[in-house]
């Protein structure tokens, strides 16, 4: 009876559940305004973020299609197991959203392990910390782990897994209880295939498995691979280590070294054996088959050709000995040839222009392989100029072996030039023809050139993609008439797609808003594919992700959604550094930072710096997204730091203390980029400066001693097109900064200050970069402030300004010989940076500059010059440098030169 009852019951329940669901789904009244939304089960995401993802908010009109799209979108984020959206029975304007978030692995605990290290177990376990937890796969993961640990020598291992669910936090704690059992151990190691005793013991030494060790298959396999590599390095290119077996405690590893390859060269003088060997492919292919010998020989001959040995010949001979295959390369080098004259006939364009395009240069090395290459280059150059029927009629050379000179004769049949007669557009609605004419690279009367046409098609296509025309197709029709080509760009615009939502996956600690805001897409606006790509790249620069991928997917509502997959990286960092500088001697720092406070990419740091002359403590905070103006290129950011420092300023020449400073300051910086290269900022700084133990001749005003409050504010504009901020080889870096200190903003001293700097960098040669810098500054006091306080004065001389002088030693001098700084300065530098080998480089420079007490004192004839050179060793954060600066305007009593040691370029 009870069984029957239960069956009936289950049947009734089944009917009811299905009936209820079918019935309820149809009972919802669309077009109702949603007045309240109640979300249940959300723990790891803010409600605002969730509603943004689902695309429903209070005040919206209820639409089933929107609900469906929202559910599907949220599920795609990978953060949910289930979503149900309902309408309250009692209030049809009240929406209820029930979510089941996926569980996150909060902790993995390992118990019971003795021989196996915890790290080994965690590394082998496929479930990682902060992964989403899938209960269904848990058993499978345990079984895999067990198999792996068995392979590590614990054949009897048994793992029991336990999962504790935290429903509130939607997280789990995994316990792995390991019963290791008795491990299999190695009693004896046997090396098969080797006879010599020494070789066997050497092999065991490399294998690093000894009696008593646990029999770890993974370890043995890894060591066998290392052993094989060692044999290969010894030129046993067909050496095989393995298979291996383990029976009754005996581990047997079979080794077959095979024969050694011995590659020899004779008859070569111009090119070393090592270079020739590097050119061959015997070692990379581990073979001396006929085709490998042939390919290697060809490569060697080509190398000789590149060096100008046009007659070089090579004969490889292979012999086999008991333990090696020997490939002897007999080489005839011939004489080295240089190019004499290059004579070009049949041309209407300047020969100089053509010669510039050729690989073969007058006076250069003659490489016969460049002859066909240059023939093609000439034709390509002519095609680019609109000569569609150009032909290199003859390309011959005369060799004078005695002189080692080759004269080259080139005859060209140019044919007629075709120019563009007109450019037309068809099918364009979004952009008018005038707008498109600005975009394309072909103009009326410009030479007919397929590359420009292709670039123009791409430019049109890209322009359309900024307005959401993702399926844009551009074809080109060409009509030739009387030496002219008439181009028609036929445009099929396709549909304009509008942006819907951004779905972010893979973020655990970073709020999705950090990613969506960075993409700068506006809902229902045309999807700008070009900006999307560049903004996706910007996500990397946040320092929060090790991988970012974006994909455009179709939304249920007809929009284009952006699916962003991220892999978070570690947001915290601890840096410790030590160094040496010529002025401050030994120095060190400790920097602790975290760049994801509140999951919003907010940055905070504590930094301590210490050297023999100063101590500094900085507390810094940075909000990268304070506000974004509509259509602005970037958001406004806010940086703040609190700093306390104690500093001693010394006269380097005499070693005497000029003055000491204790400074507590608050700096805030509001910054915004106007384009990729231009940014503006407003800097405010409040400092309490205590200057003491000041040399009497350095004191210029009453503010120079005792405690002084300086409150200053000012804008700055920065232009930066450098390709690398640490080691630039091209671009410009310029800045204009103004600041004012006034009693109106709480300052005890009053002044205006303007600083301008402009640096430019240009690569002159593959290994040579020219760098030029011009900097200047002016300051003027006002009110009852007569002189700038010493802390605000300009000082010059030293490693980054005029390198023939010690730090801050230029400009006005006090009665005791101490530099007192000034209110105006100019400094210019020219530097040639030459890379000589890998990361090592040298520089030569000319510096000039000086400091004057007042603007009216500026006299360019007083500029102090120094020249010199230096060594550089490039690191990822700029070069380590050693500079020798020689004074060109040495005064009586001054040293001839100064040496500086520091990190980073001078400018």
């Amino acid at each position, binding site marked *: 009876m*009870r069984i029957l009852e239960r069956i009936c019951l289950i049947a009734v329940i089944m009917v009811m559940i299905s009936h*209820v669901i079918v019935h309820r789904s149809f009972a919802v009244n669309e077009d109702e305004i949603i007045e309240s939304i109640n979300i249940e089960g959300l723990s790891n995401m803010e409600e605002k973020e969730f509603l943004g993802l689902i695309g429903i908010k209070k005040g919206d009109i209820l639409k089933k299609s929107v609900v*469906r799209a929202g559910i599907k979108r949220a599920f795609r984020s990978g953060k949910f197991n289930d979503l*149900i959206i*309902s309408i309250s029975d009692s209030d049809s304007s009240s929406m209820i959203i029930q979510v089941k978030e996926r569980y996150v692995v909060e902790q993995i605990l390992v118990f019971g392990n003795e021989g196996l290290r915890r790290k080994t177990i965690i590394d082998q376990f496929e479930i990682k910390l902060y992964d989403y937890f899938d209960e269904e796969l848990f058993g499978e993961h345990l079984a895999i782990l067990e198999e792996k640990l068995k392979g590590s020598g614990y054949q009897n291992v048994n793992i029991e897994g336990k999962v504790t669910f935290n429903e509130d936090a939607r997280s789990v704690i995994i316990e792995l209880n390991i019963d290791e059992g008795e491990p299999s151990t190695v009693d004896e190691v046997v090396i098969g295939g080797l006879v010599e005793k020494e070789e066997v013991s050497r092999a065991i030494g490399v294998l690093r498995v000894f009696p008593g060790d646990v029999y770890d298959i993974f370890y043995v396999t890894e060591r066998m691979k290392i052993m094989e590599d060692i044999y290969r390095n010894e030129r046993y290119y067909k050496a095989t280590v393995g298979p291996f077996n383990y029976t009754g405690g005996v581990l047997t590893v079979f080794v077959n070294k095979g024969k050694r390859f011995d590659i020899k060269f004779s008859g070569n003088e111009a090119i070393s054996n090592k270079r020739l060997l590097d050119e061959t492919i015997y070692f990379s292919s581990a073979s001396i088959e006929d085709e490998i010998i042939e390919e290697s020989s060809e490569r060697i001959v080509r190398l000789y050709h590149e060096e100008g040995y046009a007659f070089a010949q090579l004969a490889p001979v292979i012999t086999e000995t008991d333990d090696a295959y020997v490939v002897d390369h007999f080489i005839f080098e011939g004489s080295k040839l240089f190019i004499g004259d290059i004579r070009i006939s049949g041309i209407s364009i300047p020969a100089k222009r053509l010669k510039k395009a050729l690989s073969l240069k007058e006076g250069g090395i003659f490489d016969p392989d460049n002859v066909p290459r240059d023939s093609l280059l000439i034709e390509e150059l002519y095609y680019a100029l609109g000569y569609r029927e150009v032909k290199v009629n003859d390309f011959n050379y005369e060799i004078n072996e005695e002189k080692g000179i080759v004269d080259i004769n080139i005859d060209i049949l140019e044919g007629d030039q075709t120019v563009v007669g007109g450019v037309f557009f068809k099918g364009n609605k979004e952009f008018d023809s005038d707008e498109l004419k600005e975009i394309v690279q072909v103009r009326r009367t410009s030479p007919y050139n397929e590359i420009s046409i292709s670039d123009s098609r791409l430019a049109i296509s890209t322009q359309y993609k900024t307005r959401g025309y993702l399926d844009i197709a551009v074809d080109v029709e060409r009509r030739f008439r009387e030496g002219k080509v008439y181009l028609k760009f036929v445009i099929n615009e396709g549909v304009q797609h509008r942006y819907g939502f951004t779905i972010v996956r893979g973020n655990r600690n970073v709020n999705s808003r950090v990613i969506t805001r960075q993409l700068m897409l506006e809902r229902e606006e045309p999807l700008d594919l070009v900006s999307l790509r560049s903004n996706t790249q910007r996500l990397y620069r946040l320092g929060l992700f090790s991988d970012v991928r974006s994909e455009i997917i179709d939304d249920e509502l007809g929009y284009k959604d952006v699916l962003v997959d991220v892999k978070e990286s570690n947001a915290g960092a601890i840096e410790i550094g030590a160094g040496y500088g010529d002025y401050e001697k030994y120095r060190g720092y400790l920097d602790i930072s975290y760049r994801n406070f509140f999951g919003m990419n907010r940055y905070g740091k504590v930094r301590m710096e210490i050297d023999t002359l100063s101590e500094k403590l900085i507390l810094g905070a940075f909000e990268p997204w304070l506000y974004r103006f509509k259509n602005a290129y970037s958001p406004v950011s806010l940086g703040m730091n609190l700093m306390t420092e104690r500093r001693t300023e010394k006269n380097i020449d005499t070693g005497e203390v000029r003055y000491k400073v204790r400074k507590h300051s608050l700096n805030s910086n509001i910054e915004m980029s106007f384009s990729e290269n231009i940014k503006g900022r407003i800097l405010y700084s409040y400092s309490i400066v205590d200057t003491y133990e000041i040399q009497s001749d350095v004191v210029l005003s009453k503010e120079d001693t005792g405690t002084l409050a300086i409150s200053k504010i000012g804008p700055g504009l920065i232009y930066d097109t450098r390709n690398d901020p640490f080691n630039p080889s091209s671009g410009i870096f310029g800045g204009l900064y103004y600041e004012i200190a006034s009693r109106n903003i709480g300052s005890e001293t009053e002044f205006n200050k303007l600083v301008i700097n402009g640096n430019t960098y240009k690569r002159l040669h593959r290994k040579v970069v020219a760098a030029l810098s011009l900097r200047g500054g002016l300051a003027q006091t006002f009110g009852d402030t007569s002189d700038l306080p010493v802390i605000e004065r300009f000082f010059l001389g030293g490693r980054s300004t005029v390198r023939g002088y010690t730090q801050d030693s230029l400009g006005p001098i006090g009665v005791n010989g101490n530099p007192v700084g000034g209110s105006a300065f100019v400094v210019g530098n020219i530097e040639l940076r030459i890379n000589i080998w890998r990361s090592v480089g040298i520089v030569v420079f000319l510096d000039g500059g000086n400091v004057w007490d007042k603007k009216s004192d500026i006299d360019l004839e007083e500029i102090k010059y120094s020249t010199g050179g230096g060594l550089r060793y490039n690191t990822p954060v700029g070069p380590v440098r050693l500079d020798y600066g020689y004074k060109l305007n040495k005064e009586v009593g001054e040293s001839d030169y100064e040496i500086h040691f520091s990190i980073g370029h001078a400018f």
Partner: protein
Amino acid sequence: MRYTSVLVMLFRTTVPVKLVLGVLLIVLGVSVDAEVIDEIIANVDDIAITRSELLEEHRRMREGGSRISLQDVLNGMINRVVLLKDASRYRMEGNDDEILEQYIEIRIRALIRVDDKQVREYYNHNIREFKGSEIREVYSSIRSYLIEVEVNKTLSNHIEELKRESRIKVIKELPLDSS
């Protein structure tokens, strides 16, 4: 509240009421005081199939005269998602139907080979059905038929293979068919 009271009554004599009630309330979710607009019923990896989609598709097919069950409609939808997911790797253009057509053409049909021997074997085995027609008269029809049979078989195996590589979950009980 109407369903809850009935359930309590039914369970009173057989199993602990609190336990059953708890389970049922979880299963029914908001059914007692809310009307579901939509919910997830199944998923293929990160693609959700919602109840409204399933019912809409079922109704559409029924209106077309099919007596297909809800379960079969769901299976069909899952198969479709699985195929479309794989097709997305090939960067095909068009709506879902067009993409599926291109995908089957490239991924399945292009690999099918029916040779002369197979056509002749089929003809000889089923000669009675051709009622005296010469093989040359029915050759192309037999060939097309054999290709279709092979496409269906290969497609079916291919779907099964893709399904094995995907994570497919039916997370809700299917409603009974409403005919």
